[in-house]
């Protein structure tokens, strides 16, 4: 396809594709329906094309950032088509070649995009079968489709390949109705462990990320940054920087940058700029932020009101306040973009989870119509929600427009920590009660600043109130408001990590007070069949021993319902009572995510989620003083490393009755809770704040 294109009718668009068979399809996602899709018709969302060489290309606005959809989406297409995974090419995140997509977040790709893709592939298979029946002069019912070949059942030599069928035809179909999909029992590609399609490229260094794209005459930019959020530039002296050989200095509308063909020279020249900043008054720090949030969050919104929490009978009451600090995304690949802006068009390679919204914001910065801007998303080196905001791409575009040359902006690690859109610090207050029968008689829950996801408990409760203050919806964008000293935004399962930590800790507190084993206590309030089944699966895999806690064993349990999946996690920890250091020995996680597309991919996501969860549980908490970010690199901001990662067992609970559900996020939501409950079981100390640093654990033990 050509670059910038005008809005096409569906017919003319499909003609642009050339010969072959194309099936366009829409995803049943609200996110996909709202915005304009320049260059494309309005009535579909993605498409797949089969060409005369037999290759099948799936065009999708989703992006690959490690979560493995480049493989699982190809599997889904291959399954319904009757083709091999190896014959599928995925074109992803290219705004000129793929129809509009809001972004890759919320564990939505498989859930929302998957069914539409499968329906389109099923439609394509029907088209291929019809063509083959004509060609072979038999009824379609007599045909078998496998490995990209249609043959007469029982006569494999009478055959025709997909490529031969696609040759000399120009067939376009649009899928609007629900298709009849292959049953899980018939799967030959889905449900089978499949090696990643990006494997060879990633182990050979050939995989291209946005920062690896090279263009002739490109410049590397370094940008003058404020020392703290909220600081205002009073004056800047760029004279010395301008004297560095080969350096271009840009100083326009608040954007001060130095550019050079060598990134280190640009960095050295940036250090030559003398700048005076007016700093804002000191704001809260990582200790006082919770008081600040409670004081300024305002009135909560009621999400659930069932029964009467004020009149419920209470034999025992429990009031608990939970806290969690700001957590960074900290992908190893920083935000990076290369922009090549010409007079009439712009091409930008960006590390982003949201190529289409990014295209629109770049167009606004450049003063271009968005049809003249193309965003290409190569492999993304980790996102976790943090690559939804794309300031670096807009900066690169502006600088390229000013300099007339391609410009790369790659954030330094310090900039990455400074400009991250952090998982917000937050507070949860729970007032609950047990009735005389040992059952939960009241659940009054208020979450401040985390968000609503995971706030409503999965348990059968009679008198429930759930309220949320200043929790924004988990859209794919970050925000800055007057509540937080810097920008915050979605972070892998936004809000749910805190809400499940608080909920499942409180459940454990009540189980202990009731003198009941925490598993039995949960089962006593849980009728949901899927949740009971994952709990039992985890219990069997772990070898859970019933006991009133704390038992000294260091075993904890937590459950969660997230992104359409249900998950139960059990952990074993050892605690050094003097240092407060917690060693995680073992974690078992059982998850029901409906039909599993790629079992190995699913296990990888669960293991990855649990490993990442160790960070927010034990070590990750941003240190700051007002708008000044004190953590500037990985030396003080500690990600989980090899020595803290325990044996993790991911158990997939079979549920072929349910379409594939979210996989990348659900497991991480249980990690804070399961580890806090395990620490309690080991020590009797109840941890109410994340992360559970050794100092905090030791202090909690000392208070016993």
């Amino acid at each position, binding site marked *: 396809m050509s670059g910038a294109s005008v809005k096409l009718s569906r017919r003319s668009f499909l003609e642009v594709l050339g010969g072959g068979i194309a099936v366009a399809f829409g995803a049943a996602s609200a996110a996909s329906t709202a915005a304009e899709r320049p260059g494309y018709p309005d009535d579909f969302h993605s498409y797949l094309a089969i060409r005369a060489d037999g290759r099948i290309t799936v065009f999708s606005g989703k992006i690959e*950032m490690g979560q*493995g959809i480049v493989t699982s989406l190809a599997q889904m297409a291959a399954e319904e088509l009757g083709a091999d995974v190896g014959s599928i090419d995925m074109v992803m995140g290219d705004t000129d070649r793929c129809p509009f997509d809001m972004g890759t977040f919320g564990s939505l790709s498989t859930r929302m995009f998957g069914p539409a893709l499968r329906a389109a592939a099923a439609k394509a298979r029907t088209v291929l079968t019809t063509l083959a029946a004509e060609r072979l002069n038999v009824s379609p019912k007599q045909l078998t489709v496998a490995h990209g070949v249609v043959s007469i059942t029982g006569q494999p030599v009478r055959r025709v390949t997909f490529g031969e069928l696609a040759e000399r035809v120009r067939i376009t179909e649009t899928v609007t109705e629900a298709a009849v999909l292959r049953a899980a029992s018939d799967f030959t590609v889905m449900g089978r462990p499949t090696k990643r399609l990006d494997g*060879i490229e990633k*182990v*050979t*260094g050939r995989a291209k990320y946005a*920062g690896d794209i090279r263009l002739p005459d490109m410049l590397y930019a370094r940008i003058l940054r404020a020392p703290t959020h909220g600081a205002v530039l009073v004056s800047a002296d760029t004279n010395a920087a301008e004297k560095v050989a080969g350096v271009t200095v840009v100083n326009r509308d608040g954007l001060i940058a130095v550019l050079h063909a060598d990134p280190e020279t640009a960095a050295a020249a940036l250090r030559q700029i003398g700048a005076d900043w007016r700093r804002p008054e000191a704001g809260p720090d990582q200790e006082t932020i919770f008081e600040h949030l409670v004081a300024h969050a305002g009135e909560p919104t009621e999400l659930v009101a069932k029964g009467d929490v004020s009149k419920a009978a209470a034999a025992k009451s429990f009031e608990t306040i939970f806290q969690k600090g700001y957590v960074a995304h900290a992908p190893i690949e*920083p935000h990076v973009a290369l922009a090549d802006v010409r007079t009439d068009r712009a091409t930008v390679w960006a590390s982003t989870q949201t190529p289409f919204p990014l295209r629109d914001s770049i167009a606004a910065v450049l003063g271009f119509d968005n049809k003249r801007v193309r965003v290409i998303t190569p492999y993304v080196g*980790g996102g976790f929600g943090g690559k939804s905001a794309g300031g670096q791409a807009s900066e690169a575009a502006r600088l390229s427009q000013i300099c007339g040359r391609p410009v790369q902006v790659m954030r330094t690690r310090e900039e990455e920590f400074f400009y991250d859109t952090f998982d917000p610090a937050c507070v949860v207050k729970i007032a609950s009660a047990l009735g005389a029968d040992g059952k939960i008689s009241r659940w009054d829950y208020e979450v401040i600043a985390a968000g609503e996801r995971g706030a409503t408990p999965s348990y059968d409760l009679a008198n429930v109130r759930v309220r949320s203050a200043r929790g924004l919806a988990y859209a794919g964008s970050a925000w800055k408001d007057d509540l937080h000293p810097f920008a915050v935004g979605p972070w892998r399962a936004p809000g749910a990590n805190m809400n499940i930590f608080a909920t499942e800790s409180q459940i454990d507190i009540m189980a202990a007070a009731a003198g009941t084993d925490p598993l039995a206590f949960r089962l006593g309030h849980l009728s949901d069949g899927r949740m009971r089944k994952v709990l039992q699966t985890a219990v069997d895999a772990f070898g859970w021993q019933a006991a009133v806690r704390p038992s000294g064993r260091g075993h904890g349990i937590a459950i969660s319902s997230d992104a359409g999946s249900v998950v139960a996690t059990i952990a074993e920890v050892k605690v050094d009572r003097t240092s407060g250091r917690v060693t995680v020995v073992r974690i078992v996680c059982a998850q029901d995510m409906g039909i599993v597309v790629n079992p190995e991919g699913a296990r990888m996501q669960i293991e990855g989620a649990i*490993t990442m969860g160790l960070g927010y549980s034990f070590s990750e908490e941003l240190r700051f003083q007002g708008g000044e970010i004190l953590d500037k690199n990985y030396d003080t901001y500690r990600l989980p490393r090899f020595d803290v990662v325990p044996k993790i067992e991911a158990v997939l609970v079979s549920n072929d009755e349910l379409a594939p559900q979210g996989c990348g996020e659900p497991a991480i939501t249980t990690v804070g809770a399961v580890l806090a409950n395990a620490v309690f079981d080991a020590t009797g100390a109840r941890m109410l704040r994340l992360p559970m640093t050794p100092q905090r654990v030791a202090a909690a033990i000392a208070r016993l």
Partner: protein
Amino acid sequence: MKNIVKFSLNGAPASIETDDERMLLWVLRTDLALTGTKYGCGEGICGACAVIVNGKAHRSCRTPLKAVAGADVMTVEGLAKGDELHPLQQAFIDHDAFQCGYCTSGMLMDAYALLEGDSHPSHQRIVDHMERNLCRCGAHQRIISAIEQVAAKAGDSK
């Protein structure tokens, strides 16, 4: 200062005339277009930029070009022999020992250096050695399994 620096790069002679105080990472990525070696932290903390210099893993973001004059340098691009993957690369694929892949080059380089010095290290030795490399996707236990697979095979052949 500007100088001609000669070294062996992935088995072939390399000669570059440039400021020899520049860090090897940026020379590789900009002058030589070898972009498999990644920037992660710039301070030698994360390991994404690891390369092999005379058989040992070095952080190329903290290694001035002049330090590799006359040395044998290998980057991730030099690990495979043509289309034949190095056993570590194959093991990483076999174990799905990566997700986003951004830390993978450095992981492979550090694992390579470990096995160069000790062809069948203990589990704990592998963990201790890889401690200096960061992965945000959480592929840790698979990376260890991949390295153990290669170490076990090295042991078999002896």
